[in-house]
Structures are given as structure tokens and as C-alpha cells.
């Protein structure tokens, strides 16, 4: 199996993982890529922050609660 993925492909997979569970080979490829690529590791952190932000954004919009509550 080939676990080489470009940053572009890795980015696509990271975003796709929000919609469905990735196949084992893709998950492995991501882990390998993150070990050697600083940019994609940072993108992973950005995607995580955005995911958490969207959940709180709903609360911020849909009620008058401050986002942290």
C-alpha cells in the first residue's frame, strides 16, 4: 500500500473526516503525513478549532447565552 499523500490530499481527507469515517489506509496515511509535515499538522489544529467553534456558534446564534456557557 502507498501511504504517500500530498498536502492537498491530506487537507481533503481532514475535511472529509468530518462527514464520514475514513478508511483505515487513509487514517494511517494521515498519521504518517502529520509526522513529517508541519503545515498539515497546523491545518489539523485549525480544523479542530473550527469544528469546536461551529458547535458553540449554534448556541451563540440560537439563544442569548454567552458562547462559553
Amino acid at each position, binding site marked *: 500500500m502507498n501511504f504517500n499523500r500530498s498536502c492537498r490530499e491530506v487537507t481533503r481527507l481532514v475535511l472529509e473526516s468530518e462527514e464520514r469515517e475514513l478508511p483505515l489506509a487513509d487514517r494511517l496515511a494521515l498519521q504518517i503525513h502529520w509526522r513529517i509535515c508541519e503545515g498539515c499538522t497546523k491545518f489539523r489544529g485549525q*480544523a479542530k*478549532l473550527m469544528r469546536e467553534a461551529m458547535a458553540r456558534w449554534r448556541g451563540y446564534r440560537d439563544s442569548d447565552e454567552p458562547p462559553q456557557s
Partner: protein
Amino acid sequence: MSDFARQVETLRPQLLRYARSQLRNDAWAEDAVSEALLAALEKPQSFAGQSQLKTWLVGILKHKVVDQLRRHSREATILSDDDDTDIDELLFAADGHWREAPQAWGSPEQTLNQRQFFEALDVCVERLPPAQGRVFMMREWLELGTEEICKELGITSTNLWVLLHRARLRLRDCLQQGWFAGRPVS
């Protein structure tokens, strides 16, 4: 006008903004809000008061917004020209490497405790191109499943995937420029 009716009316501008940001069409948004307000005023007894008035109204509005999306599904899926820009081409070189490597955004906690961040996020969501904005909001605000979105809009899962992918990359770009750039992160 009763107190209840006045309170409901006070929330109208905000509801209209939410409906617009989802539907991307002023006339449909007006209809959705009018239907939601009518439902609320016709059945005030269903507001039990245990939740906030706004939370209750937004809950009703979401149903009316889905009705509008259903009613206009054909028109809603026209992919306008601005959706054709492939953001991947802007972010990645031909060899698949980042043109500009992503920056660290710091700890989510620090960012997500700031109310202004959510105002910035709101602005970025509003700026998404219409088709991307619609599917992104259906997913993140209406919390519809991917199958349901495809069914409502009559698009394939590949179409949906591309739209969500582009929306999220654009959002990230907007947050980088509008919020994180020049902000020291720990």
C-alpha cells in the same frame, strides 16, 4: 399589542437575518420569518417558558426555513459563478504543497471564550458564496444529515462534498485574515 406579541416582534430583525443567511434570498427569508411568527402568535401556549423566547422562536424558524428550502429546491441549487472558483488552486501549488503554510491558531479555549470571535465567524459565514453558504448552513446550523441535504436540494453526495469542502476552506481563509492574522497566539 400584548407583551408577548411585542417581545416576539422585537426578535423579528434577528430572525430575518438568520433566515437570510441560510436561504440567501430576501423574499424566501421574509416568508419563513412571517410563517414562524404567525405560528408563534397562533400558539403562544406552546411556549412553556422553560426555554428562552428566542430559543423557542429560532426552533420554529428552523422548521419554516427547511420548508422554504424544500419549496424552492430547484432554484436554490443553481451554482452561481462565484462558486466555480476552485479554492484548492489558490491554496496549493501544482505539486500539491501548500503555497502558504498554515499558521498555528493557538488553543481553542482561548479563542472560543471571546464573544468577538463569534461575531467574526458570523461575518465569515455570511460571506460564503450562495450555494456553499446554503449547504454549509444546512449542515452546521440546521444540523441536517448529508443524505437529507442531498435529497432536499436534489444534488449528489459528490456535489455536496465539494461544496462543503470549499465552504470550510473559505471559512478558514476568512478567519485567518479576519481574526488570527496579527494576533499573537500562545
